[in-house]
């Protein structure tokens, strides 16, 4: 049987079967992302315990699909989105609980030295951040705490890049007003 390929051509390697991620990969990713994701969730929820729960729930959801995932960067992006979704769920549950179950909100207890560590202006800024819309707050925290680029924020929050820009601009404008008022 003759080889139909032209002379001198290189036999292509068979397409490599992409390897699925292992449990060791999961451990590695989870350990490397845990602290930063809990902190992001805590900044969004203003409640560290709820943040830990949300991040655990999110990574549990990631783990359920783990063995069908192919690459670590994609899995990390998926996990970031899962954490944001879990914090939104936690936030919704809190609102639902307050509205319908007539529960009192459990406020996070600040550290004893929190007052000393924060200036009046910083406290006002954080309060103003808490008063922004969820989307604006998410964009600003991912941009200025997590250091994500606009395109990464766009993928994480599943929103167009233009929307990310407008949320950032409006959020910053609202914070600027608060800072000016505190001068």
């Amino acid at each position: 049987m003759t080889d139909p390929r032209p002379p001198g051509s290189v036999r292509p390697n068979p397409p490599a079967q992409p390897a699925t991620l292992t449990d060791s990969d999961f451990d590695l990713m989870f350990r490397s992302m845990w602290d930063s994701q809990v902190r992001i969730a805590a900044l969004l929820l203003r409640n560290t315990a709820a943040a830990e729960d949300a991040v655990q729930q999110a990574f549990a959801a990631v783990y359920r699909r783990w063995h069908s995932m192919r690459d670590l960067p994609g899995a990390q992006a998926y996990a970031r989105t899962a954490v944001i979704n879990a914090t939104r769920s936690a936030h919704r549950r809190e609102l639902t609980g307050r509205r319908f179950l007539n529960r009192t909100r459990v406020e996070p207890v600040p550290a004893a030295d929190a007052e000393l560590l924060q200036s009046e202006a910083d406290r006002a800024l954080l309060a103003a951040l808490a008063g922004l819309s969820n989307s604006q707050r998410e964009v600003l925290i991912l941009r200025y705490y997590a250091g994500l680029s606009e395109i990464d924020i766009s993928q994480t929050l599943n929103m167009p890049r233009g929307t990310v820009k407008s949320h950032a601009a409006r959020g910053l404008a609202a914070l600027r007003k608060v800072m000016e008022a505190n001068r």
Partner: protein
Amino acid sequence: MTQEVEQQLERVLQATAANIQPPPPDPDAVRALAGRPTGRDGSRRWLAPVAVAAAVLVAVTVPILVVHRNQAHAPAGSGGNSSPATTQPAPSSSTSPTPSETGRPANCTAAQLRPSVLQSGTAQGTEQVVIGLRNISAASCWLSGVPTLQGVTAAGSTVTLAFTRSADPAYVRQSPVAGPGAVSAGALGAFRASMQLNFCDRAAASYARLAIQLADGARIEMPYPAELSVSGCFGDLGQAGPASQ
């Protein structure tokens, strides 16, 4: 000024986050939460021993049961070591009694049941909701089957909610729903429904009332529970039955 705001925001967020000290990460806890066994790479290594154990169990118990049954039905004096009487008809007394033979009450009617949200909570990225159906009549009634749920708008139009009607025993037999059965006068029946929270990009629709159509056609309405409005992604719907209290 914008740059100043950005710098201050970055500094304040970093300082605030630095004060948050998460506990050490525990991947095993996450796996447990995910409902999978803790494992090494290729985490289905547990499958082989479980399959072997199940096969051994079947291989041991089936012959014992067959021999026991044949001995029980063998004529007096025939001895215990007779050949398996596979041609002997099974005695009629061994068949399970049907519900009617056990005095099963009539199916619950809409007028007998008062619906309410019995429990709600979050588990593994879902909002789990148990709708209670209290038997407010003076008689027991039978509750079974997976109901159909419909959202009724303020204008009165009806939309069947896209729950997955689950027959998975691991879902439908979760506490407090004990499966089909009689609900005594004053007691609670229930069914379980879930809403997907994670990875849901559909907004929740707004309904005024929830219509519950039981398996035999009885239709009950209640105010639309807020717990079913937490997302636009409907999850599983289990069968109705008496609830443990």
